[in-house]
């Protein structure tokens, strides 16, 4: 019988963290997910900065979620300063966010998660037997980068999206080129759905979940919305996000944890499909049905399937956006003029891993006085611990060697981004012979 299980570092989690499970009298006494997560502590970097300097700094919290941070940050600034952007700007920003969703889901599914389900220790090992599948995943990730490069000016860390609009809108030719690449990508994303449909999904972490996601007024599935919907039936305006993300400080982690009415909740692709899945259409709807996500899933390992569905959705939606932009004609419009004033505002976006909130206050000179950034991973932490507890209870008789990887699978299913952890290459230089000691680069 285990007394305690400690996993110091999690393989294939962006950033890294550890799991500690304490067992007393044959029962799970305590489960801690300890991560070095600290996007909350990025706020000192922006206090005192001008309104137009905030997004270029905070977009760098994460390379993979860069588009979501950029757009949530710009929306918070614009909300505080009373700026209304054009329909074209809204569409282009959505395209950026859809690109980020494609990129992030492709990376997570093919390089971090599918190796788990097929029993490979890494994407490199997976590539040795399933080269075409890994290549397809990298091509889909590249497609997400290409969208962001075409719209944002760079594959990551967009410099083109600014307060009030875009520095330079994309050309018609660039959009037509993207359309061609997206059409090819749609076929690849459907092949990814086929691949995921063949995976055997274990059910050892199944338990009831409270899901939360943004809810739009429109009829379609969306990564944007002014209201937060919960599977409990509660809804909140995004300005009241703190009532959802009622944070508590825990002794074992650098990160704060979010609870809703004292209970953990989950955000991310599975939460979005649970709450808004009936709004899916086209191939994405077929993919949802094919992957068995038509009814509410209580198994977080299904988040991988949900990401596969969303990859199809994001590509189809990107094609629709491009068609609308081409139909209306790209206007060479300038960003909306900013009239500086004191104010406060919230911006929220469904980032690949779940709802992302940026909340800022500015003084009358347009200098930032307060900032709050709540990442999806911070919101999911308490739910991860809940699922780890359930898993250990279900698997308590398994050996340490068997249990450890399964617990890691649970954590990875949430696609946690612990992006501000320090993660650099370390080499051990011994008499000029080089050996790789450890590499912790987030990708």
């Amino acid at each position: 019988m285990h007394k305690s299980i400690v996993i110091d570092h999690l393989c294939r989690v962006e950033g890294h963290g550890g799991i500690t499970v304490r067992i007393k009298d044959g029962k799970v006494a305590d489960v801690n997910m300890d991560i070095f997560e600290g996007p909350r502590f990025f706020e000192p970097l922006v206090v005192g900065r001008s309104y137009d300097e905030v997004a270029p700094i905070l977009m760098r919290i994460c390379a993979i979620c860069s588009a979501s941070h950029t757009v949530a940050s710009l929306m918070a600034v614009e909300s505080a300063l009373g700026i209304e952007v054009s329909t074209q700007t809204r569409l282009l920003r959505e395209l950026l966010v859809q690109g980020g969703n494609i990129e992030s889901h492709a990376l997570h599914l093919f390089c971090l998660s599918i190796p788990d389900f097929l029993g490979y220790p890494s994407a490199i090992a997976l590539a040795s037997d399933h080269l075409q599948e890994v290549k397809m995943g990298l091509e889909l990730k590249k497609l997400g980068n290409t969208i962001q490069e075409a719209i944002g000016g760079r594959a990551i860390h967009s410099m083109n999206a600014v307060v009030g609009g875009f520095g330079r809108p994309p050309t018609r030719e660039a959009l037509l080129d993207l359309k061609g690449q997206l059409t090819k990508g749609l076929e690849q994303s459907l092949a990814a759905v086929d691949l995921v449909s063949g995976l055997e999904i274990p059910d050892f972490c199944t338990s009831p979940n409270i899901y939360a996601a943004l809810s739009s007024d429109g009829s379609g599935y969306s990564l944007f919305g002014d209201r937060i919907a919960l599977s409990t039936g509660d809804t909140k305006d995004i300005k009241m996000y703190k009532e959802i993300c009622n944070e508590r400080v825990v002794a074992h982690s650098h990160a704060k944890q979010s609870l809703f009415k004292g209970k953990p909740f989950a955000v991310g692709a599975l939460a979005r499909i649970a709450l808004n899945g009936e709004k899916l259409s086209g191939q994405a709807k077929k993919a949802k049905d094919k992957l068995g996500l038509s009814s509410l899933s209580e198994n977080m390992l299904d988040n991988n399937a949900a990401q596969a569905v969303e990859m199809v959705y994001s590509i189809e939606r990107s094609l629709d956006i491009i068609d609308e932009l081409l139909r209306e004609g790209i206007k060479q419009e300038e960003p909306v003029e900013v009239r500086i004033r004191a104010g406060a505002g919230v911006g929220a976006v469904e980032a690949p891993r779940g709802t992302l909130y940026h909340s800022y206050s500015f003084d009358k000179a347009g200098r930032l006085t307060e900032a709050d950034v709540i990442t999806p991973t911070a919101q999911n932490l308490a739910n991860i611990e809940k699922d780890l507890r359930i898993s250990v209870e279900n698997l308590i008789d398994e050996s340490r060697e068997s249990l450890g990887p399964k617990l890691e699978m649970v954590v990875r299913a949430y696609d946690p981004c612990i992006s501000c952890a320090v993660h650099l290459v370390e080499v051990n230089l011994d008499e000029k012979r080089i050996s790789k000691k450890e590499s912790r680069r987030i990708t």
Partner: protein
Amino acid sequence: MRSAFPKKKAGASRKIIVVGVGNRLLGDEGIGPCVIDNLSRVRMPSYVDVVDCGCDLLSLTSYLDRPQKIVIIDAIRAGGKPGEINRFDYSKLATTKDETQSGHQIGTIDVLRLLKSVYPALADSEIVLIGVEPKMLELSTDLSQEVRGSIADVTRLVIEEISPQPSFWRKGEKHERSKHTDY
């Protein structure tokens, strides 16, 4: 703007990619992107792509059209003094014992291994890592004084790496070699 580079020899059409890796919000972790900022002030020859990839080295997939060489600038802890520069030949790093089985996420070396295994275009590409020994890896948009002081030498080393061999420097032009250690 005057280019510091002569024209490349005819027939040499393959690209060189210079890529800075790291998070600018974590102090010396940002050395790679900061060197890219510095290089961006110089007009690069057409055969060189200069890329700030943040923490996402896999975004290199957008640039892999059979490059002749990839030069990666990163914070690499090698046990030296802060700001010290080491130049690593990827082929030497990659042939050492594989520890990724117990590794962490997809690390820099692992990303390169993955890309090499998936993209035949990289089969004969030379890959060089330029590592700067970090001092401070904490929440900050600034580099430590020591690492900041290395930028000029790292930039010089990158320019040496991308220059046609044996030497592209103009006759009579003074050139101080970069201070670094080769591995």
